């Protein structure tokens, strides 16, 4: 293998001019980075593993419940898993909201920035035609896209797995009987209601990833915080104390299944998630924008 020196000049034609964001024909740099980050994510085994779990996990749970008579009676809807398929996605949401969903998003978001540190590739991509702002926004959007796509996939597979188990009406948390059509709506709305806190955890994981430059910390800190929030909720916190925890919005869907239904916790949860999301995003950008990449010779 030798460098074909005489063929270099064909590339180095100054008249051709540079490509880059200053060219108005170029697409938005953020979208370019977002698309490339998604392509990179598709190449990672952990992303594929999470997607596979979302795809088949609910069906495996349904199969598991079918071969045993016991029920997870200590969780909401747990006692109804053998009588209505609509109870199954809600039991999964009850478990998942505790730690599975934060962990799932942190696995990607906590690594998406620090993996560049790990591989030493910041200096490779920052010497191309995209600004730090575009790279930050593109990566951030890719992490949010992954989190949202995972949630949408889970909503679909959970609902399908539940429908496979049975479409009988289900008993709501207020003791009322909920018809199949209304239960379908409530299952979807309940799952949608946890997307804001999932995105809050995504921003938190991104911040820890940016600040620590270490994937283990980027993934681990949100997971530890999730567990810490659970411990704290066992303490007799005042109401406002519960509301500022990012784990609290994961249970806001309970109000949708009460008789009469109420949305107060959901709205508080929306605000809490928005505050966490904004603070973590801003902090991540402030750390990232003036970071020195390598440099000391």
């Amino acid at each position: 293998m030798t460098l074909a020196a005489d063929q270099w000049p064909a590339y180095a034609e100054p008249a051709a001019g540079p490509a880059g964001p200053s060219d108005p024909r170029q697409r938005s740099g953020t979208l370019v980075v977002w698309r490339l980050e998604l392509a990179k994510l598709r190449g990672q085994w952990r992303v594929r593993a999470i997607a596979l779990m979302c795809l088949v996990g609910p069906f495996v749970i349904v199969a598991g419940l079918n071969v045993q008579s016991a029920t997870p009676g200590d969780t909401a809807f747990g006692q109804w898993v053998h009588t209505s398929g609509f109870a199954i996605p809600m039991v999964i949401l009850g478990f998942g909201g505790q730690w599975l969903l934060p962990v799932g998003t942190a696995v990607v978001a906590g690594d998406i920035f620090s993996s560049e540190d790990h591989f030493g590739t910041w200096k490779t991509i920052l010497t191309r035609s995209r600004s730090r702002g575009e790279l930050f926004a593109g990566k951030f959007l890719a992490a949010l896209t992954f989190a949202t796509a995972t949630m949408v996939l889970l909503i679909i597979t959970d609902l399908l797995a539940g429908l496979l188990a049975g479409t009988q009406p289900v008993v709501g948390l207020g003791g009322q009987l909920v018809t199949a059509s209304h239960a379908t709506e409530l299952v979807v709305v309940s799952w949608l209601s946890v997307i804001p806190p999932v995105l809050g955890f995504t921003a938190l994981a991104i911040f820890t990833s940016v600040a620590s430059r270490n994937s283990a910390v980027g993934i681990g800190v949100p997971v530890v915080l999730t567990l810490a929030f659970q411990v704290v909720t066992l303490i007799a916190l005042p109401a406002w104390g519960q509301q500022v925890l990012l784990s609290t919005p994961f249970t806001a869907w309970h109000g949708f299944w009460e008789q009469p239904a109420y949305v107060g916790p959901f709205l508080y949860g929306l605000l809490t998630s928005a505050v966490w999301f904004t603070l973590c995003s801003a902090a991540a950008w402030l750390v990232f924008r003036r970071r020195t990449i390598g440099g000391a010779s």
Partner: protein
Amino acid sequence: MTEATGHVVEARGVSKWFGETTALDAVDFTVTPGVVHGLLGPNGAGKTTLLSALFGLVLPDEGTLRLFGRTRAEAGPGWLDGVAGFVETPRFYPYLSGRRNLAVLAGLDGGDAAALIDQALERTGLAGARGRKVKGYSLGMRQRLGLAAAMLRRPRLLILDEPTNGMDPAGIRDLRTALRQLARDGVTVVLSSHNMTQVEEICDAVTVLHRGKIAFAGRLDAMRADAPDPVWRLRTGDDGAALEQARRSAGVKAERHDDGGLVVFAAQDPMDEYVLTLARDGVAIRGLELDVTPLESLFFQLTGEAGQPGETRQTPAGLFIPPARPDNVPVTEEVP
């Protein structure tokens, strides 16, 4: 490039500190168009920090940097348009193939970069490895992939940090030829190195950095004019007679080397005369090699790498480093 100064790269009073460490100390650094400009210095001199600052990877604490006459603030997102290269060893995503890595970078560049990927791989000799994951690449292959990645940007300014690291001799030879060709076609090349010999063979101008400061900046021919005598390793059949002859020869200084043989400081012509005289006197010449070129000698003096006068030592790479000399006056007597 800037109309006002004609410089492709212009750094004025650039300083950078990492905690208590001064990486760059009020550095003035300019590069004119269409030249191959060497940035020289020992490890820790600040070469990589300066190149990183050019790429915007490191933000200077003081001073002004201009590429093509524009500061980063003036250029905005187009700061690196027309600029390509790498600092330190080129790094890529190990879980992607060489081709896929270039596709990611071409995607960031936009334009017709993606259409150049296969040609770039071909021309850097990586066509056969395009589908292999980068984690299986050798250091030399990663250097080549770094060059291929630079090619995608059709650079007008190519910045390369130690580009020959890990390359085989044929690759180094071809890279030198390619960079000279690029310069002839109007591309400006800035390359860092700690190897003076490589720089001599390829560069038109050099800047020597030492402990974050400029030790020398100028054309290579100007540097040659300031350079001390080269250093030769001489093995003879009678070192005592050869030493005695050196004392009598104008412009020649010799001393014994710890590993045997002699170390001779002399310009080309006095050295030729000295060797011919030895032969006429019946002293067998068993070996003669140029150990340190004049520019290497000057480099070592500028960077304080030569130690004290009369002291000789070996670099980690085994290169013989001559004793520092206070001036360029030919010496005819052996240093005690």
